[in-house]
Every structure is written in C-alpha cells, then in structure tokens.
C-alpha cells in the first residue's frame, strides 16, 4: 500500500533536483562581476530608499493562529465525511456537537472584531 505513493516521492525528487540544478548550473556557468548597482535590492528600477525593517502588525499573528485552529477543525471533517453513511444519525449528532462548540468560538471572534483587518 505505501508503494502506491512512490510516484509522489519520485515527483518530489525530480522537483528538488530541477530547482537544485537550476541554482547550481547558474552559479557555476554564470560570469561573476559584481558592482554596487547590481548588488543593491531590486525596487522596480528606482534607487532604494528607506529600510526594509518596519513594524509588522500583530494582525498577521492573529490571523495565522485562527487559521490553524479552524484548519484543525477542517481536518476532522475528512474522516467524518468519508464515513457519513455508516455513521448515520449518531455520527451527525456527534459532529454537530463538535461544530456547535466551534461555532461559539467563531461567533465570538466575529463579534469581537477578530476578522476585521483593523
């Protein structure tokens, strides 16, 4: 049964090989003549100004954590969905309780403005 997934492994190896080959070949065969203009960061042709370091909003963190929590909920849906008919009514009730508890959380975040950007 794990043999069925061998093509995925082959694809991963090929992809990594391709990316590595591209980097390695260009590093070996390309000419090496650095000058200050070429080494400066690319900003659509304009001379760069300002620093790259800026205060990142904590909104990103909040969004990422909420994504994790609801992602885990989604993962729990897969086995239930696959066995939907066998689990019958009781399965529906059990999953409904699961979703209801998380729905409370969802409504809470919504009303507290967790989904707004600012």
């Amino acid at each position, binding site marked *: 049964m794990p043999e069925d997934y061998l093509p995925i492994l082959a694809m991963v190896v090929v992809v990594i090989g391709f990316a590595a080959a591209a980097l390695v070949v260009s590093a070996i065969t390309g000419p090496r003549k650095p000058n200050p203009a070429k080494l400066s960061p690319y900003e659509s042709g304009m001379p760069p100004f300002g620093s790259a370091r800026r205060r990142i909003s904590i909104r990103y963190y909040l969004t990422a954590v909420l994504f994790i929590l609801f992602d885990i909920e989604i993962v729990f849906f897969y086995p239930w969905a696959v066995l939907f008919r066998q689990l019958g009514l*009781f399965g529906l*009730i*059990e999953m409904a309780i699961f979703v209801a*508890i998380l729905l*409370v959380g969802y*409504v*809470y975040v919504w*009303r*507290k403005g967790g989904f707004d950007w600012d």
Partner: protein
Amino acid sequence: MPDATTLYLILPEITLAVFGMVILAVDLIWRERSRAALAWLTVLGFVIALATALLGWGWNMALFAQMYVVDTFAIFFKLLAAIAGILVTLVSLDYLRDRTPYRGEFLALFTFAVLAMMMMASSASLLMIYLSIEFLSYMSYLLTGFLREDKKSNEAAIKYFLYGAITSALMLYGLSLLYGISGSLNFADITATFAARNDVPTRIVALVSTALVIAGLGFKISLVPFHQWAPDTYEGAPTPVTAFLSVGPKAVGFAVLLRVLLTALPAFKNEWIALLTVISVLTMTLGNLVALRQKNVKRLLAYSSIAQAGYILIGLVSVNLNGASPFSGLNGVLIYLFAYLFTNLGAFTCVIAIENATGAVEIDDYKGLVKRAPFIAALFVIFFLSLAGIPPTAGFIGKFFVFGAALREGFLVLAAIGVINSVISVFYYFSVVRAAFFEAGKDTAPIRLAPPITFSLVVSAALVLVMAVYPEPFFNLAAWSMGMFGVAK
C-alpha cells in the same frame, strides 16, 4: 453513541462545558452591562456541577472504552474542583474590575479550567491524561497572562508556558514508551503487561518512563526540581489566578499521579517510592528554606505551596492499600488536600482583600494590619497556623494523618524531616503575622471588605476550624473516596 448511564455520569462535565459557552455568549450579548450577574452565573454553574457530581456517588464504572472512570476517588476531586471554583470566582470579580476589560472571558475560561480539572480526576487512559493535562495547562497559561499590560503577568505566563511545554514533551515521551511496551493506552492492560513481563530491559524502560511521567506531573504539582516556574508565576499572575493555581492543578495533579502510580505501575512500587522519597525531602526542604528569605507575600506563599507538595508526597510514599486503617497513605493525602484547599484559598483571599484595598503585596506593607483590618489579621493567624500544621486547625489533622502513615510504613526519617520542616515553616509564616500585629504601619486607614470576599473568608476559616474540632464527617468522606477503579481494596 454513549448510553443514558454514561451521559448521567458525565453530567458535571457537560454542565460546565455548557455553562462556559453560555457565559461566553451572554458576555457577547450583554457587552458592558452587569458583570456581577455573570459571576453569579458562573457560581451557579459550579454549584450545579457539584450537585451532579454527587449523583455519581456509589457508581464505580469505566466509560468511553475504559478511558474515563467515575469512581468515588474521582468524585472527591470533582468536589474539590467545584468548591475551589466557587471560592475563587467569588473573590475574583473585584480584583479584575480595574485591571482588565475581559472579565466575561475570564469567567468563561475559568469555568473551562475547572472542567479540565474534573476531567483530569477521571482520566484512566494515557491519551485522556495527556489531553486533560494539556487542557488545564492551556487554561492556566491563559489565566496567568491575562493582564496584558502588566509586565509581571506576561513574564509569569511565559515562564510557566515554556517550562510546561518542555515537561509536557518529556511526559509525552514517557507515556509513549508505556504505550510501546504494552500496546495499549489503558491502565489495566499496562498493569497486565508488566505483571507478565519482568525481565531487566523491560524494567529499565518502565522506570525511565515512570521517571518521565513523574517529571511531567511534578511540574504541575511543583515538586523539586520542576518547581522553578512557581515563584515567578505565583508572583506575577493575577492573585485570584494564583490562588487557583496553588490548589487546583496541585490537587488534581496528585489525583492523576496517584491513579497512574497505583493503577498502571504498581509493579514498580519500590522504585517509585524510592524516587518520590528523595523528591519529597528535596521539595519540603528547599521550599521551606527559600521561603525564609522572601519579602513578597505572594512569593512566600508560592514557596510555602512548594513545600506543602512535599508533605503531601510523604502521604503518597506511604501508601498502603492493604487493610482498612485510617493511616493508609491514601487517606492522609485526601484529608491533607481537603484541608489544604480551604487553608490556601483562605490565605490567598486575605492577600486579595488587602491588595484590592491598598495594592500592596510586600510584607513591609502589611505592618499594622491588625489596626486596619483586624478580621483579616486574625484570619491570617488561623490560616498560617493551619499551613504550619499547628492544632487546632485542619492543617494539623492533615499532617497528623500523613506523618502517621509514614510512621506506620516505617519511614521514620522521612516523618522526622517533615516535622522539622513544619517547625521551620512557622518562622516565615509568622514573619507576616509579626508585621501585621506587632509593627506599626505608615497608613492607618481601615480596610473595607466586599461581601463576597467576607463570605469566602468565613467559609474557609470555618472549615479550617471545624475540621479540627469535628473531623469525623471529613474522615468518612476521605474513607469513602478511597475507592479507585481497578485497584483491589
């Protein structure tokens, strides 16, 4: 699908889960309106949970494929959890009023924390133990770091979290080894495996996993050397949360430790008794000696809490389930935990009362307390007498049974060290009393007490005194609570 009996027996947990969500929803709908009503709703939830927990008395069954056990041992700890919940809720609302706008969430999270405690008391499978410990840990981290602007609260939460995450990982490794050897998550199967296989490699691995599990649980109970988070966390957390942390996780941590050691690992009794004896001595001694140098009342009570865990461990070490003697270690542990709950909650409530009025937590600020709040000063004396184990208090009864059990099992040196440590502890407890009674303070305005705090103090003090004068009902409670599923009496 769980049947009617199962649902009936897990009513306390269902109640608390529902109440937690209801509190959250009500807080969303009502927004800024009366938060006091929410506190009463929380207390109502705990009272209903307490009542439904008592319904399960006398049943002795394992539910959910042997994962969740409802026996009198579990119900005892559910009672402790509910009582701790009620008392802490009563004193927390005033404290939080000016410190955070998230008061409704605090009550909801606190309800879930008590739910986690109840689930820990009933867990009988490696998976459930880990899940419920993590549940309680998350709640504890959140509640500790609740005051977002307070740097000390942040520091307390970070230290608690980092320490907890590492010991959790260690404990999980130990649990996975137990699973690997026995092939099952169930305590009964694990015991059977160790009864059947007694070769040296198995013993080595089992001992390593026992040590790791003790490490993980020792973190929750604040045993040495897993105690280092306790002083900073107790000092930085909001004081009601500190009160909760000092009794809640400790009590159910002991419950889980007892269950794991007595139900899953009885084959290695000699080894874990030896290990726990050493830990007990270290814990008592370090806790008491460092407490002597503390100037902050919360830190002092933190080290005192660490030392108390050492005393309770003496009872665990002397456990002897053969024959029905009042000096079996298990009896001592239960009585001690019951006494300790009220004593420590009472002591912290006094600290909260003073902190609400004056914002002070240093011993120096307690000078002249007897003139400003004589009621609290008197109660401090009672609670500290109880913590030190001096009659006529509940703490004395607890220590009596724990040391008595140690003597009965032949642990004379251990009992002696315990008594010496109790004597040492008198010194630092009475540094606070001396400041309150015999030294003059700068401020002399009287301190007023809110009714919920007064009620909570009266209940705690009454129980501490009643337990010493009329201990029989509590003895019976402890004796009945010794029924642990899967352990032959």
